[in-house]
């Protein structure tokens, strides 16, 4: 099982919106946003099945999410994590002095992490910040 | 409530015929009273100072969506210009487009008590009222724009004045508006397709109606309703060389109409910022451009049912903003600066572009001259009001500078000889050089208070010190006997009122703003006969073409108009 490099982007999904309004402390929010969407080709390179937990690492941080098949693909070379604390654990915070972090276009490494768990948002943020 | 007795000042009140006499002026329970009617008044010694009723602004863009675009998209207009709050005053910011707080403080410093927001897009009425609510001290009203409104275009194509009137009455009530504003009639709707109406007889695409029909019909509807204010128009082809003929065509439409109202208003058409509409020639080049202010104002002098305001160019870097969408697009191509535009569904549009009136160019100097000429050719100053179409021709804070130019040949010559690069060309292509008239303080009171109050239909409340009117008095540190030597004293005095009493409350005391007053929002509630057809049309348009529901269109509730002053008009037949 090899680690792969991809370009990470993030943004809204309807499931992210619904689960967010249902309560970010709930597991449904984790299940909607604690994911990484990849093309089939990437799963081949990664050498694992869909719905496997993976660790996503950038020079800015690292987070465990569940890798699933692209729902709005294909998008060759791109990985997608819905906006939320999981994506924000690894995105490029550089604002280029505009105030806006570079939420889209962060080079990340993905490797399989079957034995690691995807934390809920509160546990994740607490672990990282407190 | 405190009583005030103002003694020893030089008083100017054209309504009472007081021309610089030292008479006592008294305020009690928020109203003007006879000097004898105050028992234990606070005495204000106005010795060596000028006393007038508080100023009334007939046309300024100080609140609403396009004004706020002007603020938000011009941080550079505020750079290094922030003023910290002190006492009751909050922080101020902005030069050409001041924050609402600064707007209120500027008006207070200039001795004004009322300001009419010149253009309110009906769909954005809530926004306009939120800004008016947050602008302390001064009373304000707002004019919804009608000149490109689909209901109006459809009714006036068929010359249905009664239906137009019914719709106007409904809209004034829905938006808490004050009167009828008409900007580039037909042109802004045409702009929905990137086109324009350049003369009063151009046809509006699809709607098949002309600016002439729109202006004529809106005057008819305004007088049908008997509104306090007359139809307030910004005509076609603003700012275009040679547009004075279009202006005359527009003005002449008023010949068919007589005023019909219970407010003492004698005009049926107010042409705003006339300066922008008095151009001759074919280009802005000094060999072609020429002033036609004389021709236009002579026509106004020849009739009795038209008023106008000047829109004097103050030669500053400012921000232009108007519901005349196609004009702003045109302007953005002239100076290549940033351009904002908002077309408003079924109703109107607007554009905003920063602009530098550079005294080193001929055209800016000529525009400066034309504006002043509009103030100097008038025979009856009760029908010509001093404005800068703030901020279009110049920032609000420049009013006192305009007074200086109008009141002093010396000040004008100084501009022509020392500030303008092409002063001689300006003398040549404009009338400014021939004019030795100097506006007197008595005339100034007409052009800044008595006149605008009358044309707004508010002569029974503002513009004079007559007992019974609102207790609004401004006192300026200007001595008409000794301060005539230096025109700069005019500019200083009228920008730094020593006292302002508004609604009987002391707002400015010894030059300091000490009270936020009791700000009111004026709107007009016109009663008309039941009109099922218009009601049906309104419901239909909301169901099919508006993106808000009819029930969510109405401006109501204390959030928007916490302290209303409603003028009721009965137009039922």
């Amino acid at each position, binding site marked *: 099982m090899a680690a792969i490099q991809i370009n990470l982007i993030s943004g809204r999904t309807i499931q992210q919106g619904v689960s967010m309004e249902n309560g970010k402390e709930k597991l449904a929010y984790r299940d909607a946003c604690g994911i990484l969407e990849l093309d089939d080709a990437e799963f081949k390179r990664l050498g694992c099945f869909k719905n496997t937990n993976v660790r996503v690492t950038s020079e800015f941080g690292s987070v465990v999410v569940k890798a699933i098949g692209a729902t*709005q693909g294909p998008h060759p070379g791109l990985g997608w994590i819905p906006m939320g604390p999981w994506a924000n654990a690894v995105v490029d915070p550089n604002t280029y002095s505009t*105030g806006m972090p570079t939420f889209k276009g962060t080079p990340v490494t993905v490797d399989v992490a079957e034995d690691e768990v995807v934390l809920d948002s509160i546990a994740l943020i607490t672990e*990282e*910040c407190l | 409530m405190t009583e005030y007795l103002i003694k020893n000042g030089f008083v100017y009140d054209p309504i009472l015929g007081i021309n610089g006499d030292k008479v006592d002026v008294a305020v009690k329970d928020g109203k003007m009273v006879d000097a004898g009617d105050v028992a234990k008044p606070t005495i204000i010694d106005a010795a060596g100072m000028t006393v007038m009723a508080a100023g009334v602004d007939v046309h300024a863009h100080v609140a609403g969506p396009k004004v706020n675009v002007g603020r938000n998209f011009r941080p550079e207009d505020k750079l290094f210009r922030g003023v910290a709050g002190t006492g009751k005053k909050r922080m101020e910011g902005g030069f050409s487009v001041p924050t609402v707080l600064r707007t209120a403080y500027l008006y207070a410093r200039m001795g004004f008590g009322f300001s009419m927001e010149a253009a309110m897009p009906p769909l954005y009425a*809530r926004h306009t009222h939120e800004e008016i609510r947050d602008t302390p001290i001064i009373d304000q009203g707002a004019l919804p724009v009608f000149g490109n409104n689909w209901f109006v275009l459809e009714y006036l194509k068929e010359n249905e004045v009664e239906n137009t009137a019914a719709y106007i009455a409904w809209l004034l009530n829905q938006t808490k508006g004050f009167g009828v504003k008409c900007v580039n009639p037909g042109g802004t709707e045409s702009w929905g*397709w990137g086109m324009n109406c350049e003369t009063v007889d151009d046809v509006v695409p699809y709607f098949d109606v002309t600016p002439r029909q729109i202006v004529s019909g809106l005057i008819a509807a305004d007088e049908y309703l008997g509104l306090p204010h007359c139809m307030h128009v910004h005509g076609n082809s603003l700012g275009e060389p040679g547009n004075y003929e279009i202006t005359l065509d527009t003005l002449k439409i008023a010949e068919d109409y007589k005023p019909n109202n219970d407010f003492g208003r004698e005009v049926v058409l107010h042409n705003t910022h006339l300066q922008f509409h008095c151009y001759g020639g074919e280009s802005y080049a000094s060999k072609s451009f020429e002033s036609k202010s004389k021709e236009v104002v002579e026509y106004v002098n020849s009739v009795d049912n038209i008023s106008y305001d000047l829109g004097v160019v103050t030669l500053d870097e400012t921000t232009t903003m108007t519901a005349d969408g196609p004009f702003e697009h045109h302007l953005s191509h002239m100076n290549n600066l940033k351009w904002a535009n908002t077309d408003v569904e079924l109703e109107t549009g607007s554009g905003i572009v920063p602009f530098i009136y550079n005294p080193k160019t001929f055209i800016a100097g000529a525009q400066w001259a034309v504006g002043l000429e509009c103030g100097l050719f008038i025979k009856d100053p009760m029908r010509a009001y001093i404005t800068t179409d703030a901020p279009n021709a110049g920032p609000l804070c420049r009013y006192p500078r305009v007074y200086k130019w109008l009141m002093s040949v010396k000040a004008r010559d100084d501009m022509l000889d020392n500030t303008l690069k092409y002063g001689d060309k300006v003398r040549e292509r404009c009338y400014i050089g021939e004019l030795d008239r100097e506006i007197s303080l008595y005339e100034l009171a007409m052009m800044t208070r008595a006149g605008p109050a009358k044309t707004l239909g508010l002569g029974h409340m503002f513009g004079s010190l007559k007992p019974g009117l609102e207790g609004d008095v401004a006192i300026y540190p200007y001595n008409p006997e000794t301060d005539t030597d230096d025109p700069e004293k005019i500019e200083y005095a009228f920008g730094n009122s020593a006292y302002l009493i508004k609604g009987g409350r002391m707002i400015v005391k010894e030059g300091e703003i000490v009270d936020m007053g009791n700000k009111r929002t004026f709107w007009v509630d016109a009663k008309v006969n039941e009109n099922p057809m218009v009601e049906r049309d309104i419901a239909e348009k909301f169901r099919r073409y508006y993106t808000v529901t009819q029930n969510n269109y109405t401006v109501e*509730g204390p959030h928007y108009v916490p302290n209303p002053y409603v003028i009721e008009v009965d137009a039922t037949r």
Partner: protein
Amino acid sequence: MAKIVTDVVCPFCGTLCDDLEVALSDDGKEILEVYNACTIGATKFLHSQAKDRLTRPQMKQEDGSWKEVTYDEAVEYTANLLVDAKKPLMYGWSSTSCPAQGVGSEIGEEVGACMDNTATVCHGSTLIAVQDVGVPSATLGEIANRADRVVFWGCNPAHAHPRHMSRYSIFPRGFFTGKGSKSRKMFVVDPRRTDTAKMADVHLQLEQGHDYELLSAIRVAIRGEALPDVVAGIPKDQIYEVADTLKSGRFSVIFFGMGVTHSLGKNHNIDIAIAVTRDLNDYTKAAIVPMRGHYNVTGSGQVWGWQFGFPFCLDLTRGFARYNPGDSSSNDLLIRDEVDAVFVLGSDPGAHFPVGSVKKIAQLPSVCIDPHITPTSAVSKLHVPVAFVGVEVGGCAYRMDNVPIETRKVVEPPEGMLTDEEFLQKVLTRVRELKGAA
């Protein structure tokens, strides 16, 4: 017989749908059903009724546990936090009403705060671009009634603004667009084959992060100049074709979202999209509209605009307003250790800021005013739950096209709960007392 409330305004996204109908129980206390809303909007209304909802402020204890406190204690902590700080950051302001934003502005002015709203991580790039080059725009009704060329650039309304296409942009049969979607040509520019892209006549699947180059190429094509064979992964023939189609329309509109505001170049991507719109106006009519996220982020920019002159990134510390994203922007202030206290209302930076910024919030004295339990409340010292604006209290909100709409109160908040405006009023009063004493 359930009671139906009509013309309800949805307090979720910038689309600000105002045609919702809400069915209430006979006593008017409970929301039974929400009609016309998208699934996110409906969820927002229904979740407000959650039984496990927090109804009283809580303070974090030494051991990390939470202890319920009174609103008065919460006001006391908040007021002192703001007054004691040398440079407090007051962030959020998007999921609340303009009246609340107005009171917040007065507090910010009193305590000399840096104030910022969620535009800072959403359409702040757009606000900067508009300051640089302006914005030719139109209300959404103009689009519905006139537009025959519709571009969605780096936005995915099918997910982020679910009713946008049906209400405004693609499907409505407008005054001059009687054939609805058949009257319009739909373009989507996105590096992913999004659900919106799947509906489009043309999908330009560009290389991520090269929006600026592609928009620049479209400008070149509009002027009929020569192009390289491929730009941002799109062949030049297709670029010329798109340029011609947009020029040939009667009314072209570009909607754009975080695909451009978040990608390399930020404000420049918007700047040049606006330039394209400006260019198109030399050939036809064209407008550009940002797909604003929070339902009232636009409103907070408006309120600050008329009170201070700037739409976000306000620095009020010196007693007058200053503005410069990159200096006075939340993430820069936090990462650079420029602030010493954090106040959050109507937003969730804990979930939506890069984790490095969230760590700073966790290290500072902080208060979070939010009906929900969120990652922000989790790292804050004090969490103050308030009534849901647009559900339990009304107030003005501004749609993505700046159209102001009065949100409606549908049900009462739980017994004894304050609205955010009420809470802010108490804080403002207390702040003035503290300052008077000082």
